[in-house]
């Protein structure tokens, strides 16, 4: 029961919510399922890494890496841009709560709480960006490596 409450339900909600946003961003057909599954997978990574990392920022970083790897893979499989999948699957990780609480502390005049939640929100956003970047750079380097090797091999064959 505990397992259902901490893992299954949030992941299920992330799945449904990502599916909804896939429709809002005009994704059709099986793309919706792929996006929804990406959202669920990202949140599962976030939750599963909690006992080890115990920090929202590092957990977001791990989840970002998992989602980007998944989207790059799906983009290769379906031969279409990564953007769509990445965009929607990220929704559950976006610090919407962070922005809201930052704002609430600001209008209540709680300066130190405001600053700490503001920095926390920025930190999560930064962790997401770095996670995406790490994977997309690695994929590009891998692609270039193969491209270069193919070129050298062709040159050797010619000689």
């Amino acid at each position: 029961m505990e397992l259902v409450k901490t893992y299954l339900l949030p992941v299920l909600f992330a799945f449904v919510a990502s599916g909804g946003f896939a429709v809002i961003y005009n994704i059709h057909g099986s793309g919706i399922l792929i996006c929804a599954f990406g959202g669920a997978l990202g949140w599962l990574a976030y939750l599963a890494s909690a006992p080890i990392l115990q920090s929202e920022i590092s957990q977001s970083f791990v989840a970002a890496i998992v989602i980007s790897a998944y989207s790059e893979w799906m983009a290769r499989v379906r031969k279409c841009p990564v953007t769509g999948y990445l965009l929607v699957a990220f929704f559950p990780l976006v610090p919407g709560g962070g922005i809201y609480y930052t704002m609430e502390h600001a209008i209540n005049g709680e300066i130190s709480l405001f600053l700490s939640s503001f920095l926390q929100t920025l930190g999560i956003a930064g962790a997401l960006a770095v996670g995406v970047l790490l994977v997309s750079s690695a994929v590009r380097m891998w692609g270039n490596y193969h491209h270069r090797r193919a070129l050298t091999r062709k040159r050797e064959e010619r000689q």
Partner: protein
Amino acid sequence: MDYDRLLSLATDLGYGLLESGAEIYRVEESIQRLLHAYGVVQADPFVIPNCIIVSMVTPEGEPMTRVRRMPSHGTDVDLLERYNDLCRALCREPAPLAEAEERLRWIGRHRREYAMPVLMAAYVVASAAFTLFFGGTLRDALCGGLCGLAIGVALTAMTWLKTNLFFKSMIGAAISALLALGLTHVGLGQHSEKIIIGALMALVPGIIFTNAIRDVMAGDMVAGISKIADALLTGVSVALGTAFALGITRFLWGV
């Protein structure tokens, strides 16, 4: 070959990609690859979020340039995929210009879009699921769905009225937060902050911010910085809209 028409074709394809929300590097690469595929050796596209400049030198040595201004636009993944497919197909085997132009126009004319009720249902489902996701109860989810519907209607109406981006987020946030606080006051909702956060997910600029950082790291500084400014301003307008609603209800009900 008619290089004027080729230049226009490449620029219009880039315009379509950018308009449907493609990243800067994708637009630049697509234009360059297309021109290379048609035999232009030197092609230099320069793209920032609201402008495309394509300059190339024909094999006869004549330089030519085209500029297109990009108005404010949203994201349409289906359109993006189809423009991208067209670009790939043309790069693989360059079709005659007339045919390529016709295929480009066909994509622009035959957009696949969801019917309005389906789109609104998606707003309801997504917001309700996010309310549950952030720890709301089932009754909160119902309110979250209603707030999501309000945001969807407000965004569609204001897009139709060509309202600017920041005002749109501010009004959307204010309407949904007012509705959430009202529903909680009436007794339908239980945790107003969970409802507000769940519905706000449709407005929060997390995606723009992440894309902006990707652009910066890819070396497109101008694009990245203007998108970061966009994300920060949108975030501030969402916060302002919500703050406005909270302030008003506190004043009215003294909560």
